[in-house]
Each structure stands twice: as C-alpha cells, then as structure tokens.
C-alpha cells in the first residue's frame, strides 16, 4: 500500500448527501476481476450530465473530493474506493462516512477525512469561488488547510500509523501467528465446518 503523509491538490465540490457505493461505481462495473480501470465508471450516471461537477473543465484534475454527509453508504464493494483512486482522488472529505466504505478506504490508502458540515460548507464555497484553490490534507498534523481554513481532524492512531507507513494489514496480522494458533486450539468442537458431510 502506498504511504500517505500529506497531499496538496485541487478540490472537487460534490454537493450531494447520502452518495451510496452504487452511485460511486454502478453494479455492472463489478464484473471486472482486476483492481484498476474503474475510473470511467466513477459516478457514471451523473457524468452523463455535462453540468456534473466532474465534467466541468475548471474541476478537471482535482484530487480531493469534498462530499456531503453519509458518503459511501450501501453495498460493501471496495470497487468504490478503487474507482475514486483510479480517477485520481487521494482524499475524500465529508461530515460522515459509512463504516464499511471508511474501512475499505483506509485499507487502500485513500484518506477519508471527517470534518464538521460547516467546514465542508466553507470548503465548498471556497473551491466554487476559486476552482484553482489548493487544499492540503496533512495526515502528519491531522489537519486540513486551505485559504482561510484550518481544520483539525481525528483519525485513530493505529489507522494513522498504518497509512503513514504504508503497512499492509495481512503482514501485520501474520506476526500474531502464535495467538491465532492458540485460539484455534481452544475453539469448541461444535463450531460449524464447511467440510462436506
């Protein structure tokens, strides 16, 4: 996983709430068996509208998505995170994320930043007034900075450390092999097994 320390880029204001993962990447894209090539499916239905924010020339090349509350609800598809990353987003800011989406994003190195809605509103106003305005998402200092805006955000220490170091979860867990073996040894025999009976 690519490490995330700090990122500065232009922001894309997505003034929509309750954006679910099917809106981020529609179900028919889930037939692919790779992790890349999802960028054209990102917000596919909305991109048919020439006025949709991603279609506007002034927001091309944005790397920080600033979305409304309850971003990433619905289906657990990790493809939603890959689609955002394939498109070029490095961070998503919202006042509230769905749990599974947030877990998926942090595992893939897409930083999801929770900020109060009033700060999101200010970011929206800023980048709508000046699409070239840059937004810095600083994981080292846990801070989002833009012209006239400085906002601290929370992220649990463990998730932050893994992102900063670019550490892969599986390798970390495999260090606990002895604990896993010990647990397996004390599991009751009535627990289900999928072995054909």
């Amino acid at each position, binding site marked *: 996983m690519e490490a995330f320390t700090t990122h500065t880029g232009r922001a894309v204001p997505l003034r929509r709430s309750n954006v679910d993962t099917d809106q981020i990447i529609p179900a028919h894209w889930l037939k692919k*068996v790779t992790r890349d090539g999802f960028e054209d499916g990102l917000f596919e239905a909305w991109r048919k509208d020439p006025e949709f924010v991603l279609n506007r020339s002034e927001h091309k090349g944005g790397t920080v998505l600033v979305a409304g509350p*309850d971003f990433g*609800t619905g289906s657990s598809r990790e493809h939603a995170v890959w689609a955002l990353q394939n498109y070029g987003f490095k961070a998503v800011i919202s006042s509230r994320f769905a749990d599974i989406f947030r877990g998926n994003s942090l595992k893939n190195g897409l930083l999801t930043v929770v900020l109060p809605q009033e700060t999101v509103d200010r970011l929206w106003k800023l980048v709508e007034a000046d699409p070239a305005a840059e937004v810095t998402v600083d994981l080292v200092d846990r801070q989002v900075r833009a012209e006239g805006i400085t906002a601290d955000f929370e992220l649990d220490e463990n998730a932050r450390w893994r992102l900063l170091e670019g550490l892969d979860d599986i390798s970390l867990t495999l260090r606990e092999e002895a604990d896993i073996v010990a647990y397996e040894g004390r599991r009751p025999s009535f627990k289900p097994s999928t072995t054909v009976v």
Partner: protein
Amino acid sequence: MGRTLAEKVWDDHVVRHADGEPDLLFIDLHLLHEVTSPQAFDGLRKAGRQVRRTDLTIATEDHNTPTLDIDKPIADPVSRTQLETLRKNCAEFGVRLHPLGDVEQGVVHVVGPQLGLTQPGTTVVCGDSHTSTHGAFGALAFGIGTSQVEHVLATQTLPLAPFKTMAVTVEGELPETVTAKDLILAIIARIGTGGGQGFVIEYRGEAIEKLSMEARMTVCNMSIEAGARAGMIAPDETTFAYLQGRPHAPQGEDWDAAVEYWRTLRSDDDAVFDREVVIDASELAPFVTWGTNPGQGAPLSESVPDPSTFEDASEKYARREGPGVHGSDGRVSRCAKSRWTPSSSVPAPTAASRTCAPPPRSCTAVRWPTGCGCWWSPVRCGSRSRPWRRGWTRCSPRPAPSGGTRAARCVWA
C-alpha cells in the same frame, strides 16, 4: 456490569487484544461469491499465500448469475469471466464451491442458514453488505470489503475497531398486515439511514420473539440500510428448531453442548446499551419507500413529500428518478424492494401538509417520549441537510394530540 449479546459474541472471538489497537477477531465462517473475491484471491497469489482455513470457507455463485437457461453458457462475457475466475480460484485454493446448477447454489445469505452453517454465537463475514442477515441467528455477521476478504482468507481473522451497541425493542404485537419488511422500514425511518452508524443493533421485544427465522433474517438483512455494522437477534427455541437436523448443524453431544452455549447468548438484564429505541408494534402500518434510499419511507396512510421542497440534489434526484412500481388501480403498490411511486390519482402533496404546529416541547426527543400521543423525530422532511434539525416530521400513524390528520407534516423554522 452485564454484557450485551453482541459484546458476548465479540469477547468469545478475541484472538488478541492490545490497548490502542483494534482487537483481532477470529472468524468462524467466511462466505465467498464471484464479485468481491477475484481481487482477493489475486492478492493471495501475488503474495504466495494460501487459504488458512478452507474448512471455514464456502463459496457460491450468486451475484452475476442468470436465473433462466442456467444450463447454457452465460451470454455476458464479463459475467462469464467472473464465474470462471471464481471456479478457477476455488479449485486452486481448495475452497468448497456451489456453482450454478448445483442444488445448494443460491443467494449466499440463504445458503449459510439453509445448510445450518450460520449458527448462534458465531462470527460470519462475506464481501457483501447484507451479511447482517445472519445476525438473525444471534451471530455477529457483517459485510466486508475485498481487502478484508483477502485478510480473512489468509489469516481467518480480522482486526476490528470496537462498536457501539443499540437496542431496538419492539413491544407488543404486529398488526396482521404488517410484515417484517414493514417493521424494519419503520425502524429505519425512525433512526434514519445513518442512524445506525458505528452500532451493532440488537432487535428484541415481544414482536421480534414472535417472528419466524425468515422474518428475523429480513429484519437483520436491512440493518445495513440503517447504516449499522450488524443486526442481531438473541437465539431462542425458534432458532434451535430451525437449525436442528440441518446438514452442518451440530449432532449428538455437540448439539447439546452447542444449545447449552447458545442459551447463554442473551443480553444480561443489567447490560447497558449506548442507545435504546422503543417501538410500539401495534402502532405500525404497512410501509413503503418513495425514493431510492430506504430512509425515504412512509406508512401507506401518509403523503409523499413534494420534491420541490428538497434542497439537496441527491434527494431531488431520488424523488424524481426513483424507480418504483405503479399501482394499476391508482393506489400505491409494493414490490420486493418496497419501492413504489404514486400513480396519477394519488393526491399531490399540498401546502397544508407543510404547515403543522411544532411538536410539544416534551416531544422533541428522538426517543419515543413518554406521555405524548405521537412521536416526533428530527428526520428529514424534504432535505436531509438543512430542515431535519429545524423541522419535525410526525412519522407515526397515530393521530396527533390535537386530532390532526395522518399526513406527514413538517414545520419550517
């Protein structure tokens, strides 16, 4: 202090606990399907890893599968590739697979219960958000993403952050025409599509205890539509009767030991939930949703909000474009996904429906207020973003204290 059902199941699966780190939890059952697994198997292959516990893993083809002509080659080449990839991966890694045409093939969340693999007190994961379905058996079951699928395949564990607990108690008896789907839609309308975020919800109370296993699965299935991490129902005689004799249910002495353990899986009387919601079953009416997210719901007796009052583009889009099913006789109709749109003879919302008096001061809590003849909750009334803190919707079919009508009403600040 007592523990909740969810806490008991969690505690019984902790492989490793360290302060400041997520608990490492053991996974009893891992369900796979063709959509969220190919990239996970690919990750294993690239890292030279094996599936740690093939005896706790089972796969079925269920997302991109036709329901007709299953004996013929799949027409869509991309779907075909996905199924072929799952078959190849299961063969390579030694995972039991129920492919298209197999008698046990089916929707992954039905396969687990029908085979008796989904059992009380187990941890169940699947790369599908509706894994919460299995919570109907008193299992801690949740949807995971592909990275986590790979993690479970490689280690049979998951590092998980702690959750909050919510009790949704449904008192009394459900009216005859009210189904489990109506019940869960009413619960979601009450707590909101984001209301369950970070929570494991335990559904309890007389109305829940009287539900069949299938109805309990319906309720738990849609926990995810409330944003919850999981939904659970304490196992009881209905659960045991459903499981006994199923192919993978415990047998003989194991059955007795299992039932003895399963009987301990109830929230203690002194257990404290982070949030408690109480619903009176007898107040509920058949429920429909009018948009594209399950929080956009109302009892049949209420009116659909006017989209012009919505401030949020997503809400407007959902209302205008909501798929829905038209009623042939001019009334609303329900479909499998409980989505509907009004046909032309359904009265349009009127201005009057937005001008009710504010709720009594004692009724402003999210919880069902004592002594009030109605419940008011700050759920969206039009837009989710602005008016939901400033306006109030009466979501209950129960008449207002003043004897007002049953229409949903909002008051704009």
